[in-house]
């Protein structure tokens, strides 16, 4: 099967004081459609950087990156943006909801960048509100929601147009355990429905929801470990 994501010799470095400092070294990675992959590693290992590159938010790297059949490394910035816009949803640790917009409007934001007519946008937002049980909160602002509710909105925003891939950077980092469990269960359901998920986490419990763990250290992929049982790590 054609992997959804293929990384070949992907590297990222920056220059400082005449020296080259690598953030990621010779990353070779395949991720199949429908996988639930966890990226783990100590602080500074390059996890979030790898996630940003996969999510096409960072274009300063070398190597090859195929998204489906698309050679991302050969695409222009505009083409990458289009590819990312229609295929990838982001969930952030700090939720990153827009404080001046209501829940409804926050959900609408990604749709407004995709030339979707107003009526269709309304329909999609209402579906999302319904699907995530947050209809009653549609007119509230983020500062009127709890952390868990905000992250729920963040997840809803990420999946509103059924992306092929969800990227989650420490999605439960700012939540207490019960809220975190809710969110991870949600991810599991989405994955079961066919959405590919890549998460960055320090939590082994969260990692156990996925089927594979990729360990990074100092920018290198050191191990890839399958998780055999849902909800538990081997």
């Amino acid at each position, binding site marked *: 099967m054609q992997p959804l994501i293929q990384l070949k010799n992907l590297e990222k470095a920056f220059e400082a004081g005449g020296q080259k400092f690598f953030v990621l070294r010779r990353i070779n990675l395949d991720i199949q459609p429908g996988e639930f992959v966890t990226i783990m590693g100590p602080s500074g290992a390059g996890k979030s950087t790898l996630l*940003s590159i996969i*999510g096409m938010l960072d274009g300063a790297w070398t190597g090859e990156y195929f998204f489906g059949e698309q050679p991302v490394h050969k695409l222009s910035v505009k083409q990458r943006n289009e590819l990312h816009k229609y295929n990838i949803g*982001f969930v952030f640790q700090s939720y990153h909801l*827009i404080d001046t*917009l209501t829940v409804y409007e926050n959900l609408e934001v990604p749709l*407004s960048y*995709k030339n979707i007519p107003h009526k269709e946008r309304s329909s999609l937002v209402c579906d999302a509100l319904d699907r995530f049980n947050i209809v009653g909160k549609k007119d509230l602002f983020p500062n009127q929601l709890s952390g868990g509710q905000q992250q729920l909105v963040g997840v809803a925003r990420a999946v509103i147009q059924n992306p092929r891939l969800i990227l989650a950077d420490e999605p439960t980092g700012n939540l207490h355990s019960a809220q975190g469990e809710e969110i991870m269960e949600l991810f599991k359901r989405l994955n079961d429905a066919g959405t590919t998920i890549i998460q960055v986490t320090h939590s082994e419990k969260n990692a156990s929801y996925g089927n594979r763990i990729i360990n990074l250290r100092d920018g290198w992929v050191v191990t890839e470990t399958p998780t055999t049982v849902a909800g538990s790590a081997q």
Partner: protein
Amino acid sequence: MMLQTTWQDLRYGLRMLGKNPGFMAVAVLTLALGIGANTALFSVINGVLLNPLPFAQANQLVTLSESKPNFEYGSISYPNFRDWQKENHTLSSLAVYRSYAFSLTGAGESQQVKGEFVSADMFPLLGVKPLTGRTFVPGEDEIGAAPVALLAEGLWRRKFGANPDILGKAIVLDGKSYVVVGVIPASFHISVPSFPDNREVFVPLGQWNNPLLNHRGAGLGFHGMGRLRPGVTIKQAQADMDSVTSSLAATYPDSDKGIGAKLMPLRRSMLGEIQPTLLMLFAAVGFVLLIACVNVANLLLARSTGRTREFAVRVALGAPRSRVVRQLLTECILISMIGGALGLLLAVWGTRAALGILPQALPRAEQVGLDSHVLLFTAGISLLAGILFGLAPALKTSRTNLNETLKQGARGTTGSRRGAQTVFVVAEMALALVLLIGAGLMARSLAHLWRTDPGFDPHNAMTFGLSLPPSMMSAKPETIRASIREFDRKIAALPGVAGVSQTWGAVPLGWDDEQLFWLEGQAKPTSQNDMNWALNYIVEADYLRVMGIPLRQGRFFTPQDNEHSPLVIAVDDVFAQKYFPNENPVGKRINIDNFNQPAEIVGLVGHVKQWGLDSDDTESLRAQIYIPCMQMPDPFIAMAPSGGQVVVRSTGAVPDLYASIRRANAEMSGEQVLFGAQTLEQVISDSLAPRRFSAILLGTFAGLALLLASIGIYGVISYVVGQRSNEIGIRMALGAKSRDILRLVLADGGKLVLMGIGIGLAAAVGLTQLIKSFLYGVDAADPLTFAAVAVLLSLVALAACYVPARRAARVDPVIALRYE
């Protein structure tokens, strides 16, 4: 789709601004000041320069004058006017006019009315239709025609209660009855030399009982207006008139030798030299708008730190950069439109106030107002301002580093923002400095002018017009002389009056009158145009003392220099230098045209600045002669009752002196009219009105610029202090005292100020050369002005930095270190 997203951006923009009322208020007010000032000035430029003249096919209209050896634009004699009319091939019509003051009697209280002698086709030439009745018909302007008159609508309403039956009624002007044949509408406005605006009555020129009217060589103050035939250019018309005047010169060499015609577009004649002044002010006010935009840009940059995350999220959610920029620009344009609306209100108020202070400063001032052009300009400049101040912050915000910004606990990247703010503050300091220097130079020019000796003493002296009773219009010359002497005696006897003198002919800083002469020992020139010219002051014995003009040599007139004694004159320095260089002119004689005896020079007096405090020195005709009133020939005395000027000197500041004079005048005759009273200080002030107008406006703009620049630097330093509070806390924890922090922050601000002043000074050296022609008595690169303004701006800017610096010095290190 575009409409939907724009509507969305507008809604979000309004909401964002509503959440930040403080920022919104400062930004809107700043822009309102900048846009308002520009709108105000544009409304003036629109009304004065851009609006078409209110006449049909105005581009075909030209003014005409006779060019003479001493005058490029001299008055046209009546016989020459008639010949120009007949002989030219390029003008479809030609009219002449002359301003004149009439005594209106028999309709309530006697009063002086501002009138105009016109030829019959004056109003048809301009395409002016009467409100009621008709204008003059051909033949009505001939000498001996039946006396008719036209009223201006203002006079008709004020004096005659807008009586619909006015047509056919008689009015009495200077004791003569005229039948009213029409009313000219209030919408008629024109303002050219010899035809000022606000005329109240129009009379055919043939009604003027001047004995010299038919004299071909007599320039009696008539100037002409013509309409070019379709397809004819002014150049072609000029060539045609050159041919006509050449032919007349050949036919009438005595009077017309050397006389030509000078044509000028009516527009240029009406506007005078105001255009360069207005354009200079427009450039200056553009600086104010730039500074306002820079201020708001700085505010936005500071505010954008808090919105970096929002826009990073939007980009992460798929927003292209152009979309982010569009959203930010929409918010900016929203601010600028609201600022523009407020600015429009300020402009309307400000323009009215400015024109109220100096109504005489602008030609066509009645055209200044709010119209579609001004509204369009305001909308356009608001849009431009929004883009101008919004673009840089929008581009900076949209270029955010997504990774850094979206990381947990990431701070905004302020480095590049701070760089942009620095550039902006330095730029507005420089712009403010240039404006302040310009204003400073103009103010010093005005101050120089105020201090310039006009050649007479304007303190405790006044002038007014005097029109003798209508019965004097037909009185004998000796009766008229007696009446004038009686008037002088009565006024001189009033408490507080130190001296009084009639003054006919030229009036310093007012109007000119010329006399032709030739020197004794020379043969009388065959043509008047071969004679010499001098400015002509016809005055009484007390004139020198009343005006405070110094006597250099000999004596001035006495009451004994009258109609029974030999003709005497006085001359000024310039006359003496020109015609009697290195000689004492006292005792010399000259021959004055139209006098049947030579005149002896009895005194040498100081020169007065006839043409203006700033322009007299460069005029070609400056020589001045003085002739005693009572020695004027009888035909001239016969015209004196229709109006002359009187000057009075008081013993000190005497309140209500004019009221006393009016009472004394009323006792002499209920039909003797005084009008147009002014102190001599007001005369000087009025002569400087256009300069004062420019200086006031430029000073206002410079003051605005200083205020905005100070707010700008205050804002930036405050922002920097906020950003550096952590660093300040560390410094204090390491031993820095309050004064060290104060010095640190002031040094930061000081660097910006010095950079701005340095760039501003360099720019000012070049830019002030552009206003060289507006300056008087001060060099465009005057070091004193440059230095004083630089020091003033430094002090104000450092004071603006002091407030946030003090705040920084009071930071609690514990709190600062706990921050973030």
